[in-house]
């Protein structure tokens, strides 16, 4: 059986990749993908711990998270689409409507 630390390390690698991707990339779509990667890294960690603890609770939580993530992805993409329609760009430097 694969030790739990392997899953956790993979999860951490994925999470850090997501962070780096979010900060390095400049367009909204890629940043959005990076966020999804971080989310799934967290999912992976939860499942790994749940398996180690021999409980089904974690797996059920992850199902919920995936369901919500699907809805969230739909909304997020819709927002990005609308931003593109309005501003003809999805570069984050050009979008600063909330500047104080």
């Amino acid at each position, binding site marked *: 059986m694969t030790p739990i630390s392997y899953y956790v390390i993979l999860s951490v690698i994925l999470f850090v990749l997501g962070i780096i991707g979010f*900060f390095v990339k400049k367009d909204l779509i890629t*940043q959005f993908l990076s966020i999804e990667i971080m989310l799934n890294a967290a999912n992976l960690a939860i499942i790994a711990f749940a398996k180690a603890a021999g409980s089904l609770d974690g797996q059920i939580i992850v199902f919920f998270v995936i369901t919500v993530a699907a809805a969230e992805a739909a909304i997020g993409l819709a927002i990005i689409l609308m931003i593109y329609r309005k501003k003809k760009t999805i570069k*984050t430097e050009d979008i600063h*409507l909330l*500047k*104080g």
Partner: protein
Amino acid sequence: MTEYFWLIPFFPAVSSFLIIVFGRKLPRKYIAVQACLAVFLSFLLSFFSFLELRSAGHEAEALTKNLFSWIQSGNFNVDLSFRFDPLTAVMCLVVTFVGFLIHVYSTGYMSHDKSYARFFAYMNLFTFAMLILVMGSNLVVMFVGWEGVGLCSYLLIGFWYEKPSAANAGKKAFIVNRIGDAGFMLGIFFLVIHVGSAEFSAINHALEGGHIAQGLVTLIAILLFIGATGKSAQIPLYVWLPDAMEGPTPVSALIHAATMVTAGVYMIARMNLLYSLSHTAMTIVAVVGALTAVYAASMALVQNDIKRVLAYSTISQLGYMFLGLGVGAYSAAVFHLDTHAFFKGLLFLGAGSVMHALSGELNIQKMGGLRKYLPVTFPTFLVATLAIAGVPFLSGFFSKDAILTSACASGNYFVWALGLFGAILTAFYMFRLLFLTFFGKERLEPEAKAHLHESPKSMTIPLAILGFFALIAGYVGLPIVFGAHLNWFGRFQEPVIHAGHEVHLSLGTEWLLILASVAVAFTGIFVAYILYLKKPHIPHNLVARFPKLYKLLYNKYYMDEIYNATFVNSAIKGSEFVYDNFDLKVIDGAVNGSAASANFFGKILSYFHSGLIKDYALIFLLGAVALLAYLIF
């Protein structure tokens, strides 16, 4: 029907309310009839209640009616309750009767005024407030009426508010009265604290039981007297009354001669037990009254404005009433109050009639010889002048003599001498006014002469009725020399006026005092006759001889200027200082400062609001790392 005596104040109240609400839509005739009728109904009810009270005799001291419990706070209760005892009865009769005649007079006098409805609404409101004042069975209800009449006085002095002088006079009356009212309220507070109730019966009970310390009684009496000096225009708060003549003449007659200004006298007569217990307070009242009587009379000597002469005369006569109160002659003071209401009301209405005839002329130097043109005004004015001057067998003679006799009997010879001296001045300035107005050469402006006419019936009939009462009102209180039991007025007041120890003079002394009063009255009249009819050049010579004295009197001892320079200006300066330094700097500074600091910190924080999603994410990340670090270590 006398159990309904508590309805007396409500007729004018309802009428006033209706006129205020619907006045613009109602025809003038209707307003006039309603306003007069309301006061007349009050008079009828007062009269029947009075008859009831009289027939009940001494057993039923007062009719009382408790409408409802008004204020309940801890163990302090105030009821909205009325009482109708002999003192209230005569006050109600005078207020409603003289008030009714003045209302009738006003229907003629104000007929050309554009604010006809407003005038009658205020007049009815005033009558209501005055009746509340005299009928309240405790000091709080009395205070409501006290402030109510003050408000109506303000509204009616400033009735022609387009005139700045009228608006200012109204303001002055209001503010000066506030100073007195502060004392009055403090007096009420002390009584409430130490008696636990504001009811007159409870206060008298506590005083009779000796539950209040001597010093406290004196303090309360003086505080209440301060209120009276404001309302009744005594030294040092008299300055508002001469200016109050800016109001329409019927207002001067009703409020500033017959009724409202006597509220202070009524109040002290009502609290007579309190005053009787404090010799100091009594002396103060008597001396202030006597000084005011002479002081105001001296200013009346040289004024040329017909209404101002009467205003100073009113202050002077009020001084007599306080003199009477101060020497313990409470019923004599109230008696003088009543006769004064008739003859002074009549004098003002007569002056109004003269003004009406002369198209608003006020200066008596531009009158003269009017007696043939004003066949009703002249005789009534003459009767009133004779009455106030103290000519025997007219109303003013009996009441003024009653006061002076009591002053002498009480041993306050200084006060008595001042009173006698004031009586000479009174006779002199009143006859000066009469001679300059109705006798001698005509000095009319040609324009005024062209319109010269006697007033309409609505004005002359009230004059005649008041004239009749100015003649006979004195016979209800004859002095003791005419018989031991003829002072009906004094006996009627006995249940209310707790006559402590009245010193009785021998009949011979009484006769002497009466003769002195008569001599004094005729001296004043004679001097006026010489100076203003026989040898009219003498006054000019006198003015030329004593220019400083004349100027001092003519400018009313510069009292207004002194008050302006000291109190008014320092109050204004102080207010300006506070405005500049406290209002602008502290208050506005705090408000503006809080806004500015919010702005400042907002600016700093707004640097973090770049609007760029990466910045937010970075801060979020740092926050998450910091939180993690905190949890782990």
